[in-house]
């Protein structure tokens, strides 16, 4: 039996939320517009971030990180909400190391841990990807490793990352791989897409690139649990950040609507715009709770049954948050009217940023339908 759910934050969670919110309001929001225009995060992010515990929060103390005991996904979701309020691109960078660090620590071979964890402890980045459409050609090398051909990405942080934690398939078998971004047969390309422009996006073109046996993080029976976990962590984080972007969109829209006068009154008093804001606020509140619930379940996932429950909650949270952030950002631009369409105001960036929450690591709604179809 799970313990009754408690909606109150404990002292540590409250402190983290407060600290991250201050960081977001003071620094991240100040950086966001310039980082978006430049297509790069400010260098200061990589000095301030570690001071606040980012990048190494999922590394154990033994590996040079801050993790003492189990990782707290609920705390991560709470901070993800705050980061999403600031800048989706910067948030993606700050969160990028979590999945690779946790997965390789838990399921990786000594060689994989040695390849990744010291690099992260030294300030490096890693990222996570998924061959959701089966576009990659993955074949066994006859020695326990695999060879990959095809394009990996675009993925956030990949322009700066040393490794990709990659969910792929070897025939009918799911595999979790640690792919070096600079290995033989791998060509890296830096990209600046339309959304999350600060996130140091990149892609790898792999031509028969070798992932040696000791960098196959999980395969066979163990892979299902590992992959379900990684995707559930990622989905929960995406959902939390998406909810944060939706909250930001409405914060900006509310402030603008209170000031902008048309037809003799503040536009925020027009019922049609109140309806848009109210729907978005309601959606963001629900998305937040779904993300927190998924994270809370993840923190209590001790066996396959509880993990499946958490993974399902994470997937639902991601579907819902994707819908909410898409609608909220479009409606925020609508409330801003002509000003919403130009780059001087923050909401057009949010509309561009919204899409990646639905596009990364596969079409969530479709994944759910296939999973439910298989179970029915």
């Amino acid at each position, binding site marked *: 039996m799970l313990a009754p759910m408690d909606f109150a934050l404990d002292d540590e969670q409250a402190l983290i939320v407060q600290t991250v919110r201050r960081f977001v309001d003071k620094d991240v929001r100040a950086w966001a517009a310039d980082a978006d225009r430049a297509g790069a995060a400010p260098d200061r992010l990589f000095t301030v971030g570690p001071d606040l515990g980012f990048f190494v929060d999922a590394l154990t103390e033994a590996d040079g990180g801050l993790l003492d005991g189990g990782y707290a996904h609920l705390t991560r979701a709470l901070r993800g909400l705050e980061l999403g309020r600031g800048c989706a691109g910067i948030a993606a960078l700050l969160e990028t190391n979590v999945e690779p660090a946790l997965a390789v620590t838990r399921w990786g071979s000594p060689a994989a841990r040695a390849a990744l964890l010291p690099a992260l402890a030294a300030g490096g980045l890693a990222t996570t990807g998924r061959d*959701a*459409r*089966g576009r990659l050609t993955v074949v066994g090398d006859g020695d326990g490793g695999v060879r990959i051909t095809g394009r990996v*990405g*675009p993925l956030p942080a990949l322009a700066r990352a040393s490794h990709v934690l990659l969910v792929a*398939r070897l025939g009918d078998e799911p595999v979790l791989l640690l792919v070096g971004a600079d290995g033989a047969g791998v060509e890296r390309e830096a*990209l*600046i*897409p*339309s*959304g999350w422009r600060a996130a140091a*996006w990149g*892609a790898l073109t792999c031509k028969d690139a070798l992932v040696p046996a000791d960098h196959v993080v999980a395969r066979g029976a163990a892979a299902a649990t590992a992959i379900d976990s990684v995707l559930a962590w990622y989905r929960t984080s995406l959902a939390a950040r998406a909810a944060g972007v939706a909250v930001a969109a409405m914060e900006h829209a509310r402030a603008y609507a209170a000031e902008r*006068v*048309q*037809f003799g*009154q503040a536009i925020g*008093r*027009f*019922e*049609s*715009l109140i309806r848009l804001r109210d729907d978005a606020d309601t959606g963001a509140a629900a998305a937040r709770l779904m993300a927190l619930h998924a994270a809370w379940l993840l923190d209590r996932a001790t066996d396959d049954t509880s993990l499946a429950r958490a993974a399902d909650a994470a997937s639902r949270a991601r579907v819902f948050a*994707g819908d909410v952030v*898409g609608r909220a950002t*479009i409606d925020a*631009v*609508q409330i801003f*009217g*002509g*000003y*919403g*369409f*130009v*780059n*001087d105001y923050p909401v*057009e960036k949010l*509309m*561009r940023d919204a*899409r*990646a929450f*639905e*596009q*990364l*690591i*596969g*079409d969530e*709604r*479709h994944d759910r*339908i296939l999973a439910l179809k298989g179970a029915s």
Partner: protein
Amino acid sequence: MDIFVDNPMLQGVRQMLGAFAAKHIRAVAGLHDREESMPWALMKMAQGFGMSQTAVVDGRKALTGKDDEAGAGKPSSQARLGVVGSEELAYGCAGICLAIGGSGLAASPVARMGTDEQKQEFRRLLKGEDEHGRIRVAAMALSEPATGSDISGLATTARADGDHWVIDGSKQWITNGASASAYVVWAQTDAAAGRSGVRGFLIGRGTPGLVPGRKETKLGIRASETAQVHFEGCRVHKDMMLGVGQSSVGLGDTKKMLDSTRPMVGAQAVGIARAAFDFLLERVQGGTLHGTPMAHHQRIAFELAEMEMEITAARLLVHRAAWMADHHQDNVRMASMAKAYGARVAQDVTARALTLLGDEALEPGHPVEKWYRDAKIYDIFEGTGQIQRRIISRSLLGVNPT
């Protein structure tokens, strides 16, 4: 095209512009989006087959080679021509469509209200090339920083001074605002007169006091220039006031003009939606999902079915509104419905297409991502979605809801 099948001229225009969009517009759409630059070469090419910057003033003959067949009470095909052409051009690129047609916004009031002398002046201002060797374009300057949807509160003033009017104020979101050779500017001549005091003025580039302002960086339609324009004691001769000598012209007529363009704007939104739909359809027809043809997935196939229904319904609204205009019927409600629904469908289809395409559409310069950004303006400009619903509901209920 269903209601136009019996009209060979419209079919011909559709085929011609469709081919132009497919061959020429699509080839440079990504470039102009990325560089946020006007497609000057394409605009010049478009002039070559009748889409000149003065076409609206010159009349229908410029595009079709025929005089408008509309006599008293007889149907025209002007509105249908506009929607058919608009959909095809926007199918290529909405920003380029707007760049090609942007001068029409200024030409319309000159055509409707201008004297022969003003029409001649408009043509003169747009003749030849500008100092950069580019074709000349025109700008309609109506919106202001404080007046977006509510155009009755214009702050730009025109003060009589002898044979001139002196114009002061700033305009915002002006298509071709930085590059235009001719401007049609709307200003309040008599604050006490309210809307009827608002008049339009034809002003040439280089007139002292006319200061083209900063070009905006926008979410979408980046091939179409949007800029501020400032007027600082700008003197314009009284003969260049549109509707001079007529008493009941001004903003009311401008609103009618906006009503007349709404089906075309709706048609452009349909063009964007169709572009995204066709891209997705091709992917689904040729794509696989872990070895299974995408088309075999009911969820994906039904999404396409939904999109097809929405696009077809939007196009029929657009065509109905244009047909009513051509048959001299009051189409205000239908035009607003066409514009508002077209905008909704364009946003909906492009967003859903992005989701279905997944990480492929995260690649920089992906066309569907561009169409998603382009689509949003259709719910904002030429009367926001809220303004359209205000018009529709007022026509149903007889009151302005707040």
